C-alpha cells in the first residue's frame, strides 16, 4: 500500500491516487488541466422533468436559485472536500457548495438555468455517487434538537465544574473566616444550574427506570448527585467543612461528555421506512394517452402503463407488454444469472431491468407487494434486535442493585450508633462504587473500536457488535456476490482449440446479448470480431440461434448440468454438436485467504446459495469448505430461516438480496448493497466490498472485548476494595469523589492506550 501522490493519505487503490478528486486536483495544479465534467444526462434524464425536480428543491418558492441536498458516496480525503466545494469556481451556474464530511452530505445551490439532472451528472463525473433527498423529516429534526440540547447541557456542566474548582482550591488550601463562607455560598449558587439543568436527563431516565421497575445506573448517579448536594448544603448551613460541590460537578460533567460521544455515533444511523428508502430515487415514466408523465414509485396506480429503462428497479408488480425482457432477480433469490420474461409474464417488485427499455403494466401497487411486506417485517424485527443486553449492562445493573442494598442496609444498621457518620459512609460507598467507570469505559472502548473500523473503510452500526462477535464461532457466507463476483469466466472448451471462424460465429450469435455467458465470451475473445449473420434470434429460455452462409448455428445452454460443477453451453451446427464451452463463476481472489484465516481462528464456515448444488459444491471445494456445511438452492426466506437456526453466527452477505437473512443473524455483515437500506439491517457494512474486512473486524472485536473485560475486572476489584474501606470509615465522600474519577481515568487511559 502506497501513499496517495497528491494528498499523501492512505491509498488502498491500485492507482497513484486515493480517489478521483486527488487525480483531478493534481492535474489541475501541476498540468494546469482544469477539471471539466463530462455530462452523461441519460442516466439522470428523469430529473430533467421540472415536476420531479421541484420535489427535491429545498429553496423557497419563486427564489432565483434552487437548493438541493445530496448524500454523497465515495468521499475519501480532503481533496474531495476541496473539489466539491470548488464546484462554483469551474461551473458558473453552481452558486454555492458546502460539504459535511462526517455526515457525507452536500448542500448545493444552483441558478435556475441549470437542472437537477445536469447537477447530478456533474457530481457523478467527479467520481461520486450522489443521492438527492427531500426535506428533512420531523424525526431527524427532533434528533438534531436533542443533540443541541445535550451540547448545551455539557457546556453548562463544564462551566459549573471549572468554577467549582476555582472556589474549592482555596478552601482545600486552608482558607478560613469570612472569605471562606463567601466562597462556600458562591459554590452553592454556581452548583444550581448543573443540578436543575445539566442533570435533568438523569432524572428522566432514573424515573423511567423506576416506572419499569429497573434499578438503572442513572438512579445511582441521581442518588450520588443529590446525596452530595444535600450533604454539602447541610454542612454549609451548619458550618461544617464537608463540601462536595466540586467533585460532584466534575463527575456529572465527565459522564455527560462520554455519553454524548456515544450518542453522536448512534444518531448517524437514523431509522426510516426501508421500502421508501430503497426506491426513493426511482422515478418512472408513465405513458398516458401517448404522453409521458413522471411519477415516483408510490404514486403509480394499478393498470397504468409504465416504461422502464435499463438498470431500473421495479417497485411494483407488473405485466410485461414488450415482447421480451431480460431481468436481474438476484435481489429476490440471489441467483446470479439473469432471467428472461416474455410478453404477458408477471414481473415481481425488486426485479432489475437489464434490457434497454421495456413497457409494463402495473398489476400490483408497491405497498401490496411481497417485497414491501418483507421489508416491513424487517423493520419490526429491528425493534427486537435493539433489546440485546450487553455484559456491561448486566454487570452495571447488578452492581447498582448490590451497592444500593449494601449502602441502605449499612445506614439502617449503623445509624443509631454512628448518626451523621453513617450517612457519610453510605454516600462514600455509593460514590466510589458508582459503576460509571464500567458505564463509560465500555462505551468508550466500543466507540474507539467503531472509529478504528471507520478508518479502515467499514461502518459499524450497533456498538454491541464487538461483544456479540466474541461469542460467535460460526461464519455463514452467501456465495453469490460475496465470495464470487457475479461475472462468469470461460474455463475450457471442447475441442480445446477452436478455429477462428467458429469463434467469430459464436461471438456473432451472442452479439446483442447481456447474458453473463455472452459477456464472458466477449471478454475472452476480444481479439476476434463477429461475422455478419443472415439472421439471429433467441430460443426461449435456452439460448440463441442464427444463420450464416446457409448453415444453421445454435448456442444452447445444456440443462442436463445437475452433475456438473460448471455451466455448459453447446455449440451446434445444423443440429449436430460441434463444440462444448464451459464456464465457471469467478471466485474473488481474497476469498481463499479469508476462509483460511477463519479456520486458523477456529471458526466454522458455512456456505449458502440460491444456485444449484453442484455449482456451489465446486466453489466450496476451491475454498476447502466441507460439503456438509454447504446449503444450496436456498430462497430469500430459506436463507433467513437457516441463519436463524444457526444463531449465534456471523452472516456475511450482499445487501441486495440477503436483507432478510442479514436481519436474522446475531451479527450481520454486508459487503455491498443500497447504502441506507443495507446499513439498517446490518451491524457491519463494508461498502467497498472488501471481504478481508471479516477477518479484520474479528481481530478488532477480540481486542475491544479484551479491553472491556480487563476494565470490568479492574472496576470490580476497585469497587470491592474501595467499598469495604468506605464502610469501615477510611474513605469519606470527598476522598470517594476524588477516587471515583481516578478509577475512571485509569479505565479511560487504559482503553485509549489499547485501542489507539
Amino acid at each position, binding site marked *: 500500500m502506497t501513499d496517495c501522490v497528491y494528498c499523501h493519505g492512505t491509498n488502498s487503490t491500485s492507482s497513484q491516487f486515493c480517489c478521483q478528486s486527488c487525480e483531478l486536483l493534481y492535474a489541475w*495544479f501541476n498540468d494546469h488541466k482544469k477539471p471539466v465534467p463530462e455530462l452523461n444526462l441519460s442516466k439522470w434524464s428523469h430529473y430533467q422533468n421540472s415536476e420531479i425536480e421541484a420535489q427535491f428543491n429545498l429553496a423557497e418558492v419563486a427564489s432565483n436559485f434552487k437548493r438541493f441536498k445530496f448524500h454523497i458516496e465515495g468521499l475519501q480525503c480532503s481533496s474531495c472536500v476541496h473539489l466539491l466545494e470548488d464546484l462554483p469556481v469551474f461551473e458558473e451556474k453552481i452558486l454555492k457548495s458546502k460539504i459535511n*464530511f*462526517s455526515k457525507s452530505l452536500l448542500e448545493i445551490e444552483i441558478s435556475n438555468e441549470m437542472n437537477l439532472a445536469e447537477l447530478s451528472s456533474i457530481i457523478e463525473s467527479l467520481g461520486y455517487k450522489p443521492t438527492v433527498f427531500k426535506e428533512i423529516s420531523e424525526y431527524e429534526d427532533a434528533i438534531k434538537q436533542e443533540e443541541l440540547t445535550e451540547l448545551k447541557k455539557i457546556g453548562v456542566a463544564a462551566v459549573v465544574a471549572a468554577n467549582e474548582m476555582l472556589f474549592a482550591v482555596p478552601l482545600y488550601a486552608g482558607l478560613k473566616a469570612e472569605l471562606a463562607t*463567601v466562597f462556600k455560598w458562591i459554590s452553592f449558587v454556581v452548583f444550581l444550574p448543573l443540578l436543575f439543568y445539566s442533570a435533568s436527563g438523569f432524572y428522566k431516565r432514573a424515573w423511567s427506570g423506576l416506572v419499569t421497575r429497573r434499578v438503572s445506573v442513572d438512579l445511582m448517579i441521581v442518588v450520588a448527585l443529590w446525596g452530595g448536594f444535600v450533604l454539602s448544603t447541610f454542612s454549609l448551613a451548619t458550618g461544617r467543612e464537608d463540601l462536595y460541590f466540586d467533585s460532584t460537578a466534575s463527575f456529572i460533567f465527565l459522564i455527560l461528555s462520554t455519553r454524548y460521544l456515544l450518542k453522536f455515533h448512534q444518531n448517524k444511523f437514523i431509522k426510516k421506512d426501508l421500502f421508501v428508502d430503497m426506491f426513493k430515487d426511482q422515478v418512472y415514466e408513465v405513458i398516458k394517452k401517448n404522453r409521458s408523465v413522471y411519477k415516483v414509485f408510490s404514486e403509480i396506480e394499478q393498470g397504468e402503463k409504465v416504461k422502464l429503462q435499463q438498470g431500473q428497479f421495479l417497485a411494483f408488480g407488473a405485466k410485461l407488454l414488450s415482447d421480451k425482457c431480460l431481468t436481474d432477480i438476484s435481489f429476490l433469490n440471489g441467483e446470479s444469472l439473469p432471467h428472461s420474461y416474455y410478453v404477458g409474464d408477471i414481473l415481481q417488485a425488486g426485479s432489475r431491468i437489464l434490457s434497454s427499455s421495456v413497457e409494463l403494466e402495473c398489476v400490483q401497487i408497491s405497498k401490496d407487494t411481497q417485497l414491501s411486506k418483507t421489508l416491513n417485517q424487517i423493520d419490526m424485527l429491528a425493534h427486537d434486535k435493539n433489546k440485546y443486553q450487553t455484559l456491561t449492562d448486566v454487570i452495571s445493573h447488578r452492581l447498582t442493585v448490590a451497592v444500593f442494598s449494601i449502602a441502605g442496609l449499612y445506614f439502617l444498621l449503623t445509624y443509631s450508633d454512628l448518626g451523621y457518620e453513617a450517612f457519610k459512609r453510605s454516600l462514600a460507598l455509593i460514590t466510589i462504587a458508582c459503576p460509571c467507570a464500567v458505564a463509560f469505559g465500555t462505551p468508550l472502548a466500543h466507540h474507539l473500536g467503531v472509529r478504528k473500523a471507520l478508518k479502515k473503510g467499514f461502518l459499524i452500526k450497533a456498538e454491541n457488535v464487538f461483544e456479540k462477535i466474541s461469542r460467535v464461532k460460526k461464519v455463514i457466507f452467501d456465495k453469490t456476490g460475496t465470495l464470487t463476483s457475479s461475472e462468469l469466466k470461460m474455463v475450457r472448451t471442447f475441442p480445446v482449440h477452436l478455429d477462428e471462424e467458429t469463434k467469430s460465429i459464436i461471438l456473432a450469435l451472442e452479439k446483442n446479448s447481456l447474458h453473463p455467458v455472452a459477456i464472458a465470451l466477449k471478454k475472452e475473445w476480444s481479439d476476434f470480431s463477429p461475422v455478419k449473420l443472415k439472421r439471429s434470434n433467441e430460443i426461449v429460455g435456452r439460448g440463441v440461434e442464427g444463420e450464416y452462409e446457409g448453415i444453421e448455428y445454435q448456442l444452447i445452454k445444456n440443462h442436463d448440468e445437475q452433475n456438473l460443477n460448471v455451466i455448459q453451453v453447446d455449440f451446434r451446427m445444423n443440429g449436430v454438436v460441434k463444440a462444448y464451452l464451459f464456464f465457471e463463476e469467478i471466485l474473488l481472489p481474497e476469498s481463499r485467504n479469508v476462509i483460511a484465516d477463519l479456520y486458523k481462528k477456529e471458526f466454522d464456515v458455512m456456505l449458502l446459495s440460491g444456485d444449484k448444488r453442484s455449482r456451489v459444491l465446486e466453489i466450496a471445494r476451491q475454498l476447502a469448505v466441507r460439503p456438509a456445511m454447504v446449503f444450496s438452492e436456498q430462497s430469500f426466506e430459506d436463507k433467513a430461516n437457516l441463519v436463524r437456526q444457526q444463531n449465534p453466527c456471523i452472516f456475511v452477505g450482499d445487501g441486495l438480496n440477503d436483507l432478510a437473512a442479514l436481519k436474522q443473524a446475531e451479527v450481520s455483515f454486508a459487503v455491498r448493497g443500497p447504502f441506507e437500506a443495507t446499513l439498517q439491517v446490518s451491524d457491519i457494512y463494508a461498502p467497498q466490498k472488501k471481504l478481508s474486512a471479516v477477518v479484520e473486524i474479528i481481530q478488532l472485536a477480540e481486542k475491544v472485548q479484551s479491553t472491556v473485560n480487563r476494565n470490568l475486572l479492574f472496576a470490580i476489584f476497585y469497587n470491592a476494595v474501595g467499598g469495604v474501606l468506605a464502610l469501615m470509615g477510611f474513605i469519606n465522600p470527598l476522598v470517594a469523589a476524588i477516587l471515583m474519577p481516578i478509577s475512571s481515568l485509569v479505565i479511560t487511559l487504559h482503553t485509549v492506550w489499547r485501542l489507539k
Partner: protein
Amino acid sequence: MNLILFMVSVAGLLSLLFLVAYVWSVSAGQMDDLETPAHRILKNDSKIKVLQDNKGRSNE
C-alpha cells in the same frame, strides 16, 4: 478582600460570557460538523484564486 471579590466577580462574568458564546455557537450550527473545517484548512487555494479572479474579470 475587596480586590478578591472584584476578581471573583470578573471571573464569574468571564465564564458567563464564554458560556453565552458557546451556547450561541451551538445554536448557530458551529458544532454540527467538526470534521470538514479540518479538511478545508488544507486547501491549496492559490490557483483557485487566480481562476476566481479571471472569472470576476470576465463578468465585468
